[in-house]
């Protein structure tokens, strides 16, 4: 039905009179555009750009924000700093926009300054891949403005992800400060939680429900598959592919169970983050 509609639409759009409509529309658009140019002299800029402002350098920022500028020297983003390349290196103004107007206005929140905490486009300028991921169907609502990049990452100090030896925190605390239930504690924890929440979830976005790295059994099999690909084939005695049609986990063939769904569905291994009553994380 939709294919028929699509064909019909294409036929309609290919009719000469509709070609002329497109032509007229394009001509009209360009005409409005150029006529407007004749009457408007001000500058329109893409989001996260500050019209008419020029770069002043991080030293100028330090006069009011000394603590932030000082901490930035050891931040992950400082890795990209290039001496003397003001305006293109990730100093303050690379993210906050050219600061001359902000300085002239005497500072102030939002006064001629970009706040990346409110505008993720600032981060997306370099992290193009994250723009794509946050626009996927299953993502933290950064695009909707309900959470921001800076809720999880501190761009001004330390590692962008808090897991270095130079800091006392760890990566999972970034997640569990909001998702407290997943922090446990549990009588029987899932060791993947120790490895990190990002073992199974892509926090920026995924094509899969719950931002899962995979929405099927492959997610679990990555660490639990006891598949004999590198074992000797007992039939031939040769190493390599056996291909006996089994999907072995925990010493048991799970092939028929996977016909029903995934590993964590009801009746199987429901307690994916940890359990207080079942070591195999059944419930």
């Amino acid at each position, binding site marked *: 039905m939709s294919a028929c509609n699509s064909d019909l639409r294409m036929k309609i759009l290919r009719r*000469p*009179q509709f070609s002329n409509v497109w*032509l*007229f529309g394009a*001509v009209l658009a360009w005409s409005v*555009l*150029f006529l407007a140019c*004749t*009457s408007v002299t*001000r*500058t*329109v800029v*893409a989001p996260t750009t500050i019209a008419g402002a020029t770069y002043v350098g991080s030293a100028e920022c330090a006069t009011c924000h000394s603590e932030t500028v000082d901490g930035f020297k050891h931040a992950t983003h400082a890795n*990209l700093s*290039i*001496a003397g390349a003001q305006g293109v290196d990730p100093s303050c103004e690379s993210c906050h926009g050219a600061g001359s107007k902000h300085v002239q206005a005497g500072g*102030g929140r939002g006064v001629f300054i970009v706040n990346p905490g409110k505008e993720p486009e600032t981060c997306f*300028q370099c*992290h*193009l*891949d994250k*723009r794509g991921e946050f*626009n*996927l169907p299953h993502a933290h609502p950064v*695009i909707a403005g309900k959470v921001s990049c800076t809720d999880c990452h501190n761009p001004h100090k330390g590692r962008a992800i808090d897991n*270095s*030896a130079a800091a*006392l925190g760890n990566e999972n605390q970034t997640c569990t400060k909001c998702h407290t*239930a997943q*922090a446990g*504690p*549990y*009588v*029987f924890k899932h060791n993947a939680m120790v490895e990190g929440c990002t073992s199974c979830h892509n926090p920026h976005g995924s094509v899969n*429900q719950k931002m*899962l*790295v*995979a929405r099927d059994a*492959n997610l679990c099999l*990555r660490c639990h*598959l*006891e598949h*004999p690909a590198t074992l000797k084939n*007992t039939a031939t005695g040769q190493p390599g592919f*056996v*291909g006996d*049609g089994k*999907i072995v986990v*925990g010493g*048991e063939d799970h*092939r028929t169970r996977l016909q*029903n*769904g*995934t590993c964590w*569905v*009801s009746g199987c291994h*429901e307690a994916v983050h940890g359990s*207080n*009553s079942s*070591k195999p994380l059944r419930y």
Partner: protein
Amino acid sequence: MNAFPFSLRRSACLFTCLGFAATAGRLSAADSETDPFQAYSSYIKVSGQSAAITGNDAAYATRRQTSPDGSAGIEDLHLSRDLDPNTALTIDGRALFGDGDYLAKVNLTRNEVGSVEVGYKRFRTFYDGIGGFFPHNSYWQPLAQEELHTDRGNLWAEVKIARPNAPVFQLRFSDERRTGEKDSTIWGDTDFTGVPIWNKSALNPYSSNRKLVPSYIELNERLRTYLASVSHTIGKTSFVISIVRAETDNTDTRWINRYPGEVKPYPAIPTSASSPNILIAPEQANNAIYGFDEQSVESYSTTVSGEFETRLTDRLSVFGGVRHQTISADLGTDRELTTDIMTATGKVSAVGAFSVGTSGSPSRPPYSFTSRDGHATEKILSANCGVRVEPVKALFVTLALKGEDSSSEARMQADYINTKVVLGTGAVSNVPVFTNNTSETNETAWTPEIDVRYSGIKNLSLYANFDYRHVSGDETAYNGAVTTSGSGTAGTVIAGAPITAEDNTGENHGHYKIGANWNACSALTLRSELFYRDHRNSFADIASTDAYIVGYRYRGWKVSGILRPLPGLTFTTRYVQQVGEADVRADQTDATHYAGVGYYDSMDSRNHLIGETIDWAPTKQLYFQANLNVVFATLRTAYPSAGGAANAVLRNADNNYWNASFVSGFAVGPSTNLELQAAFYRADNYQSSMVVSVPYGAEAKESSVAVAVKHAFTDRLRGTLKVGYFDRQNVTTGGFTNFRGPMAYLSLEHAL
């Protein structure tokens, strides 16, 4: 017939030419400018939005994170006032009714004295009722059409005392809540799949039931945090000492729904080889199981930490810190699953019901229990020290070492609720079973790290970072089990052999990366980073040679280029490649096929991401920005190497997609801007032809367009009108979450 006369086409061309001519004459006459859309220092912005959605409203709310019924109110309020030369008052607010989005924050700051802040923030996250997979015949359980949502609220108060040359004191209290209902991926099963079910297993080439009944979680979570800290600088040493008390009170309930609308008949349908072939109706294939699983945690943690940094010289500083955390938690579970069982005297519904007949083993109860004496404690002591040094100009080196010692003990006793149902009489009796569950872990971790950065070469910065985390410890676990016993009407449920573990544990995590940033010229910047991660976790039984070891390695590189061939034109390109592999070493009990302990390749992944952004401002009055992301991602485990029947069950997890967006802004008048937006998304890996199993991959198409007009009515009042259209087709959910329709948004912003 050409409905568009030549004269009109000629007029259009002439119109265009005049436009070009006029533009050429005025472009050079550009003079000083004012921006009618510069940010106000204080303002109130009221807005409203609504959509006329055809299709699944809940899916629209989930995708757009806004109510399909519309919302309106104060989108943003910011008031900044100087009460006197040294005192500033800031008020922020938001109240979007319909979206459940609220903010009220008041901050009073006095220079060289400190600040006081109180606030409340709440926002809503929307969910649809998606759950389950699609069987091959495109059957799908009905979805919850009403929108689900959770609300996150945070009430906080903070006092900061910051006198000149004196310690800075901070006191903060926050009370965060998360309440509401969302969908779960712990799907239930059903036999209403269209797959034929015969009374003899030999006639059923593959499983008839599928886990595709939607499931939901009700959240009721609370976190209260009390923080007190003091920071100061004495001489060349700055330090911060803090104490944090965190109290959680979480009760999350998951609703379980298995085989809804089904109950096995009594007497049972004969299944012996000599019986005639009978096609079983799906409503008679299994017994319905329904109920809830409620998990509660009340935890109290106290964290005391102190950190310092001493700047010995301009090029040398040392730092360190200690943190001690104790956690005490009361754990509780109430899991009550009711089973419907048809008997000679009618249907019996009981929690934890299992059936016994005149012969054979009893059926397995659905694991229902309530807990008692659930408790867990954790102690974590962390300390680190390091040095930051600049041995030569522009070479920055950080050396750090962190040590962690942690231990935990946890226990929970479970009272299993089992109800024995005698099929022949309908008699029921309680069969309680008590089990113990305990665990204990001890771990010691050491993490050395080196971080190097050099920016002494003109237009080039180089950096490297290496850290290696080594953990050694031990764990013991005891998990009481429940099993069936006996046969016939004497069949029952008893405590089974427990699952026990007494292991030495170990972890080795290495992270390595090197990178460079090069300004090749004023028009070209190049960045590149190579990374490698190597992890291995092992669990070795203390009393035997049994072991489970999982290791994985990821390697890849990122490269970015920023090219500015012309003023106003920028190409930003990013490519990320990541290749991963994992292996498992485990004891293989299936000696028939694979004797002994061996290594198994368990994962092979390939990811390629290409991102491109083009920014172009051909004139001062116009800009374009186009974004494109293309991702090729595949994750292989057992397919296809498992071979045989396994290949009919499993496929690789392919997560390819591409999405693109376009935005253009244009000044159409001295006080009016026009903005065009468009976005596209497509995933196309859906494999619906899995006859034996569930489908794999995802397939969806989404597109949206919007036109916005921004107009500054006066220097203090501006407005935005935006109209758009969305279209979403999601094949993965069988089309049940499709939606399309127009939306409109209107806002007015007034300077205060």
